[in-house]
């Protein structure tokens, strides 16, 4: 039992934070909102160089061969930076390729690791497929079967989101030979949804953190009534409350990382708790950060809204809150899927 990250993991997190702080400042994020695709191929290659999209790719295929407990801290950083590249969708796709193995995996995993391919995944959590416009390979479901469809064979229709970083599409394709059917397909799709929801939750932690940071910074320098507004108890207590919410959400997300990485029997409920807690924290942080900023925060030129809208779209990604609350209740109240209190597990035999 060790519920902490090791030093290597912390160092990798710090390295990515530094990298993104330098390469992906708010002005860059905002510039991406204005481009056609909102995505930057050369930057994706650079991300691949620091190992992000290849993190879950086995070492044999040129990746880092790590798991979701490593990924969690990195996604906090992409969330903190407001990075719009398809890290989540690609990570989910990588896990599918790993499970499917065979030629498909042999062909695509190295390309992902080298930054030469991006992936997208359709799932039951949303009618829309994120990043379908830049994906080289798309995993799509059709009548219970799972298909791996190259970009050339899909038809996409853009569905503009309030979050300029979020690029959503309705996707159609000519149905060919599936890569999995029946129970296997269902298990893969379930795992994809859970993995994507966990990833979104981890990004939401970073988003919440950033929103709190922005508010603290502003409240420290902005003066009204002759003092920094951050010295008012009303401001302090709002921010303290959301900090509490965030830190407990963090615990859920880190546990979900472990549950996804180990395919724990409680994975579905653990992920839903993480998604709910982290997205609620991010939404609360957005509201409070906006309130602390006052009218300034309500302007387009200030950065609050960029992260606020990330919080909104992450809340809807890979299952909205109604979906995840439903699973939580199924686990805790109906007990139709596994959920047991941490530490209360049955003894090993």
């Amino acid at each position, binding site marked *: 039992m060790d519920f902490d990250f090791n030093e290597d993991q912390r160092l990798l997190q710090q390295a990515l934070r530094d990298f993104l702080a330098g390469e992906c400042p708010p002005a860059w994020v905002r510039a991406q909102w204005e481009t056609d695709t909102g995505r930057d191929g050369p930057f994706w290659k650079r991300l691949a160089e620091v190992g992000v999209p290849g993190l879950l790719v086995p070492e044999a295929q040129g990746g880092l061969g790590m798991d979701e407990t490593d990924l969690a801290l990195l996604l906090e950083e992409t969330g903190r930076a407001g990075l719009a590249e398809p890290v989540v969708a690609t990570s989910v796709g990588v896990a599918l390729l790993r499970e499917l193995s065979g030629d498909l995996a042999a062909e695509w995993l190295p390309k992902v690791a080298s930054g030469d391919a991006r992936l997208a995944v359709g799932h039951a959590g949303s009618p829309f497929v994120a990043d379908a416009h830049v994906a080289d390979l798309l995993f799509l479901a059709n009548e219970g079967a799972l298909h791996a469809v190259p970009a050339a064979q899909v038809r996409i229709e853009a569905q503009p989101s*309030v*979050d300029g970083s979020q690029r959503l599409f309705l996707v159609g394709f000519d149905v060919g030979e599936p890569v999995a059917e029946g129970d296997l397909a269902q298990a893969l799709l379930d795992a994809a949804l859970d993995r994507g929801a966990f990833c979104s939750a981890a990004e939401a932690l970073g988003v919440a953190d950033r929103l709190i940071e922005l508010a603290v910074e502003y409240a420290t320098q902005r003066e009204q009534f002759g003092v920094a507004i951050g010295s008012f108890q009303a401001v302090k207590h709002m921010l303290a409350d959301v900090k509490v919410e965030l830190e407990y959400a963090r615990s859920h997300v880190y546990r979900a990382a472990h549950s996804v990485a180990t395919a724990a029997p409680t994975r579905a409920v653990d992920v839903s708790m993480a998604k709910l807690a982290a997205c609620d924290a991010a939404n609360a942080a957005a509201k409070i950060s906006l309130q602390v900023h006052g009218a300034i925060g309500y302007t*387009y030129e200030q950065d609050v809204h960029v992260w606020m809208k990330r919080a909104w779209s992450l809340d809807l990604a890979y299952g*909205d809150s*109604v979906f995840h609350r439903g699973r939580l209740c199924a686990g805790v109240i109906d007990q139709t899927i596994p959920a047991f209190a941490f530490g209360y597990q049955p003894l090993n035999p």
Partner: protein
Amino acid sequence: MDLTYTAEQDAFRKEARAWLEANAPSAPLASFDTKAGFEAHREWEKTLHAGGFAMVPWPVEYGGRGADLLEWLVFEEEYYRAGAPGRVNQNGIFLLGPTIMEYGTPEQKARFLPKMASSEEVWCQGWSEPNAGSDMAAIQTTAVRDGDHFVINGQKTWASRGAYAHWLFGLFRTDPDSKRHKGLSFILAPMDLPGMTVRPIQKINGKAAFSEVFFDDVRVPVENLLGPEGEGWNVAMATAGFERGLMLRSPARFQSTANRLVRLYRKTVERGAPVAPGMRERVARCWMDAEAYSLNTYQTVSKLLGGGKIGAEASLNKIFWSELDMRMHELGLELLGPRAELLPGAPAAGDVGDWLDGYIFALSGPIYAGTNQIQRNIIAERILGLPRK
């Protein structure tokens, strides 16, 4: 206590309803924060004015109908029921208008009120400055007397529709040596004077909504002073009271949103979309809160008609409606599910309506017209009597 309408009130409602059914635009106008929308809304105001409904509770001589506040409430109910357009001149008719009626000279009333009622002249406000937000007494923009003019220098901000408005009203420091609440004066300024520069500011949905206004030796004639020189704070406080109070936030607005929310809930359930089990109660509770806001407003109006006054109680209203409005829109978005984030133009947006834009607008509620933190201070100190320090 009698909660039934008189025959006259019912007749007025009937008349307003019939007129609105015949005249209100059938499709929403473009946003009044755009140039084209601004003009379209002014057109609608002209129609309203011609119909005699532009300013129901104003005296007839100023373009009103001479009705009382209860009829005003009835009119608002019918206005929201008809889905009629937002009031492009709201800062004029609801904020400045009542202030001019209280503090204006006969000449000022005759000069400004009729053109305000008809929206021939649309007004924006010049309260806030970069360093005077919640702390409005920190105003620095000066208006120095020079013969029969004030010479204004400085900067105002958050002037809604400042880019299109014809006139601006606001507080300026006419005594340059004064501090805080003293030495301020309430001045009305046309927007086309030499030395005025307007820079639009986009709100978080990327649309222009307010402006910064820069003053560089702008000369305003002294007859544009409203109320006594140096007494601007008190004049402004009367205005702020109106703003937080009755007119700008008529209960029909929130009841209308609550009714839309109930319909959205029913529709969502009917089409078999997933809905959280607690949503039923939460929606009903919003409806109940909108009802409370309406009831409370009728109480206030009854009190006013009985000779009472609105004081710090307006702060109670501000907190209640602003939080209710956010809550209702949050539930609306939750009911839309994964479509909640789509912009209305998205092909799959279907009937998502304007919940998202409404939410973005609702988010400004706890900030503008005095943040809710400021309102809580007011309630605690002036209503509950807790010590200032």
